């Protein structure tokens, strides 16, 4: 009979309407700015640059290798390499980025920059309320704005950060041992070529997911 389904539907919506006043469990809406759902640990929004220690300019892990710039699908990263060198996390003298800009308004949060970074220098942040009044300048973040301490990384992604720290400590120990061996060898023999910096090949951050 025509109209039967309509009547059933009307009863269902009426039940929803009245039920939402009686049973608060029906209303699943979270009143967002006041109430917030807890973020999952693997939450990722936009990249930031990790630095160790107190001084962000000295402790920046990034060596300006420009791999992330080349890999970035929407091309939102802009890097200018420095001309001089400074010691990196492992203690080896490296280049550093003179300019490191990310256009947050273009970034699509794909995390490819994080995956390809051989130095664990770029990681994903969890901050998402980034609205500004200037959509051109306000969302083009430079090095100073992007740099965040390692502690911040520990706060937002503890498991992942611990793993990264462990790996970096291992590498540093390995490098130290190598340097020591080299020094000993140097003391006894003519100097060999400098050992290549062991790249942590494919050191996946996704292992925490």
């Amino acid at each position, binding site marked *: *009979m*025509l*109209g039967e389904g*309509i009547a059933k*539907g*009307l009863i*269902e*919506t*009426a039940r*929803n*309407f009245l*039920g*939402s*006043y009686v049973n608060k469990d*029906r*209303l*699943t*809406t979270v009143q967002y700015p006041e109430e917030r759902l807890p973020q999952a640990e693997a939450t990722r929004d936009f990249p930031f640059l990790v630095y160790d220690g107190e001084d962000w300019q000295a402790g920046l892990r990034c060596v300006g290798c420009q791999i992330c710039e080349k890999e970035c699908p929407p091309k939102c990263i802009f890097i200018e390499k420095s001309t001089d060198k400074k010691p990196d996390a492992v203690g080896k003298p490296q280049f550093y980025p003179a300019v490191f800009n990310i256009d947050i308004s273009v970034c699509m949060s794909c995390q490819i920059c994080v995956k390809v970074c051989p130095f664990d220098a770029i990681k994903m942040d969890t901050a998402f309320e980034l609205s500004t009044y200037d959509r051109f300048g306000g969302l083009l973040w430079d090095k100073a704005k992007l740099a965040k301490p390692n502690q911040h990384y520990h706060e937002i992604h503890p498991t992942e950060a611990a793993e990264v720290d462990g790996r970096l400590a291992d590498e540093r120990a390995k490098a130290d041992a190598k340097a020591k061996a080299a020094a000993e060898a140097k003391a006894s023999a003519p100097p060999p070529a400098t050992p290549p910096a062991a790249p942590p090949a494919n050191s996946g951050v996704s292992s925490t997911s």
Partner: protein
Amino acid sequence: MTALSYNSLHHSSPQAADQIFVIVQHWIVGHAPVGLQPLLAILLSVVAIVGGFGLLFAITTILERKGLGRIQNRYGPNRVGFFGSLQPIADAIKSLTKEDIVPQTADKLVHLLAPILLVLAAFSVYAVLPVGRNMVLVNLDAGVLFFFAIGSVTEVAVFMAGWSSRNKYSLLGAMRAIAQMISYEVPLILSSLTVIMATGSLSTVSIVEKQAGYTGILPHWFIFTPWGFAGFVLFMIAATAESNRSPFDLPEGESEIIAGYYIEYSGFKFALFFLGEYLGMFAISGLAITLFLGGWNAPLPFLTWVPSYLWFFAKLLTLIVAFIWVRGTLPRLRMDQLMNFAWKFMLPMALLNLITAAVWHFMPAGPVRWLVSIVLVVVPYTVLGRNQMHKGHLEKRVYRFAE
């Protein structure tokens, strides 16, 4: 020729509440010079109509958003004011301060005139709508005809909007809207013809007056007759289609053609379209109340002390709530379903309903008349409905161009 007859100033106290607006109007008009009095009276009524129905528009937007929210187990707007009650004001300020964008290739003049014409047409039809006893702007002899004539101007406005925007979606939306409005205007007018047949008048006021009185506690509204009930249902379905509301909101179809004919409108002009649409809905509900639900008459004999305009607006609110409820329930139709429904169900039902009304008119009162009329309504409904169900649902849809 205002219906506010200047000599009916004698009233007892229960009537005073009923006629309060009429009395106030007379009092104000009485201070003006004699030559200006008719003009001032009309002006006051126009201001009252624009203000009253504008306010109702504001109330309806918040009611609709809240109601739809609750139907979908959401809160709806609850930020501005007490439980979101000031949301319409925020919306109004927002749309008034927005940038007015006109497409570069648009026909600027027609683009500008379309929303104005729509709102003008939407407001004009209120001139013949009796919102209370002695509360009608003009009691036209051909009131119902006036309503439908002005209502058909909306189609022109919709076409102007869709064509002048130079946007294929808006043109598609306009064509859909016009096709739908023309198709559903036929059953709309045919279903109201039954009432015109029964009352022998096209004047809205005399149609309402014919529905006064009670048998026992049952009022003499036309909805309480078999043909009146069928006519009311047909009228409301056609009215839903005429005012482009869900489930007949194909012209707007935001998932396919984004917003139909007003896609290229922004800011204040968009607000005008929105206003025009809601005003059209109120007007056509008002006409349904006038034709079938007894206009300003009280539903029960012992409630006649309540002012007449309150009854009208109570009925109007009920119909608005029904519109919102249906919108929250039914999904949008497909174009072929829409047209099938109009021509293969609504039109034959409306024509048969005319015959039912004639049979009712010429048979002597009694249970036999009721029985015959009910059979005349129910049997075609079942047959046509079955036809719709099977033809509409089981047939595989043939795509002509998408092979």
